[in-house]
């Protein structure tokens, strides 16, 4: 597959992926646009620049692995995986429909090139630790990336896993918190204030980076710093905007889990032209 470290090119791919997300969710008439759009640059930068992987050999033993623990945001993952060549682009519009490989939440039974079946929040970090430990036992250079939501980390299992990875120095593991500040019922700060978030991770033994999550050059720098980190897992707290790129979806809790109408789709695509 074509990879690139060129920021302009990665930004262009990101814009295309946003269009795919809007089209997929509109066609499906349900889904989660807000958290898909906040994660675009993160997932695009990982798949097209940072991660060592091969769509022609999806089970390559030494590949880097990506787990979308906030599984409801799978439209952006499906769009990126299709763009990489893991799965057909021309079926993206079957999202959430009977028999589709693009299930409502990531399901390895339908799409085996996924690294995990997710959707029940809070479980991906533990899975990622297991994969990272297996790689260490095999002396494999494989690294594992786990994307969490800032709502998701209210789950207790996340902190069991955070404690484990910090204590056991799982340094081939990177957690990314897509900190878009909104969850289903409203703003994170009103539902369960998590501040100071960086201090929490640091106190669990994690190398903690805070970064602007739509700034591709800043993300590249953060991922490079994580790759060089020894004896500590790294967490990248990515400050993002829920619904990023579509003016009427940005910072709007309604679009956590509401599909755009056909009219809204047209407006969104015009903004993303």
């Amino acid at each position, binding site marked *: 597959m074509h990879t690139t470290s060129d920021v302009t090119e990665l930004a262009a791919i990101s814009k295309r992926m946003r269009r795919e997300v809007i089209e997929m969710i509109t066609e499906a008439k349900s889904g989660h646009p807000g958290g898909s759009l906040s994660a675009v640059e993160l997932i695009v930068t990982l798949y097209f620049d940072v991660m060592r992987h091969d769509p022609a050999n999806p089970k390559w*033993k030494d590949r880097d692995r990506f787990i979308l623990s906030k599984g409801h945001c799978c439209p952006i993952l499906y769009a990126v995986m299709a763009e990489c060549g893991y799965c057909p682009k021309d079926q993206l519009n079957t999202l959430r429909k009977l028999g589709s490989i693009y299930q409502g939440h990531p*399901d*390895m*039974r339908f799409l085996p090139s996924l*690294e*995990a*079946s*997710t*959707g*029940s929040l809070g*479980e991906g970090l*533990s*899975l*990622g*630790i*297991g*994969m*990272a*430990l*297996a*790689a260490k*036992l*095999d002396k494999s250079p494989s690294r594992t990336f786990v994307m969490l939501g800032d709502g998701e980390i209210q789950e*207790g*299992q996340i902190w*069991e*896993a955070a*404690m*484990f990875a910090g*204590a*056991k120095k799982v340094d081939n593991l990177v957690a990314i918190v897509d900190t878009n500040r909104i969850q289903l019922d409203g703003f994170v700060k009103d539902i369960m204030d998590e501040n100071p978030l960086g201090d929490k991770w640091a106190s669990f033994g994690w190398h903690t980076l805070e970064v602007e999550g739509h700034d591709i050059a800043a993300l590249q720098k953060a991922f490079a710093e994580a790759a060089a980190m020894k004896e500590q897992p790294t967490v990248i707290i990515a400050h993002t905007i829920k619904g990023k790129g579509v003016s009427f979806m940005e910072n709007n809790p309604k679009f956590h889990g509401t599909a755009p109408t056909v009219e809204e789709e047209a407006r969104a695509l015009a903004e993303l032209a």
Partner: protein
Amino acid sequence: MAAKTKFELKAGLATREAFGKALAQLGRVNPNVVVLDADLSKSTYTAEFGHAFPERFFECGIAESNMVAIGSGLAMGGKIPFASSFSVFLLNKGFEQLRVTAAYPNVNLKIVGTHSGISIGEDGPSQMSIEDLSLACSLPGFTVISPADEVATMALVKRAAEVFGPIFIRTGRLKVPVVYASDQAFEIGKAIQLIDGSDVTLIATGLMVAESIRASETLEAEGVSARVIDMHTIKPLDRDAISRAAAETGAIVVAEEHLLDAGLGVRVAQVVAETHPAVMEFVGIHNTYAESATPDQLLDKYGLRAVNVVAAARRALSRKR
């Protein structure tokens, strides 16, 4: 009818201890076997593996949910993980993770619960697992195993490492009699007929197998020919053994150290209903939690003895036409 074998039930190890021995042996022959424990390794007997293979032993602390999902991740990374804790914590605290990270994606995770049933004794109901078989059986794709003695445990733990897929093995704290000769072969999903009989069939699992053997001897003295079957695999069930027992003996007693609401008994009844009608009776725990006492006192009080199996067999026979 085959001649009855007189069973000599010799004292044996607790099945948890046999599990620990099997695990250490597995560690020597299979470098892919890894073990996870949640601060109970001295009680679950995974400590022996941990001492022998520290790099393949993951002490997860008191965090069973995390342990189960890390185990799934290790399996997805190509390892053969055995995650162990008391059954009550493994199945209840780890259930959501067993569902989403092991059963749903069909991951090669093995979980071994110790301290199952009420025969743990003095520690009481918070540590007693009386619903683990039903929880494990409600996970699509899971294999569920409940060995009767040390020989069965050693063999089935080793077999579990060889077959792909999620497996739960239920073991106990209490020392139990040895039922099997050391060279007995076991096949997952294939029940073992220990004693042949024509009047009634006693289908048992776990420590109720030895109790059922004793029950059959009492019944024989009364002129009742009782077949005894060890149902060491709860899922998938050996449907042939059950339907044959229903057809040939017309009466079945199921005995288990588990709640009767959703354990082996109801699963056997489902097969009987689908295959061949037979009178059925059930020995197990009736809609209650137990209490602190010695294991013997608890097995007596909660009706998990040979005498209870005999009484159930008599009830079944009296209803049989």
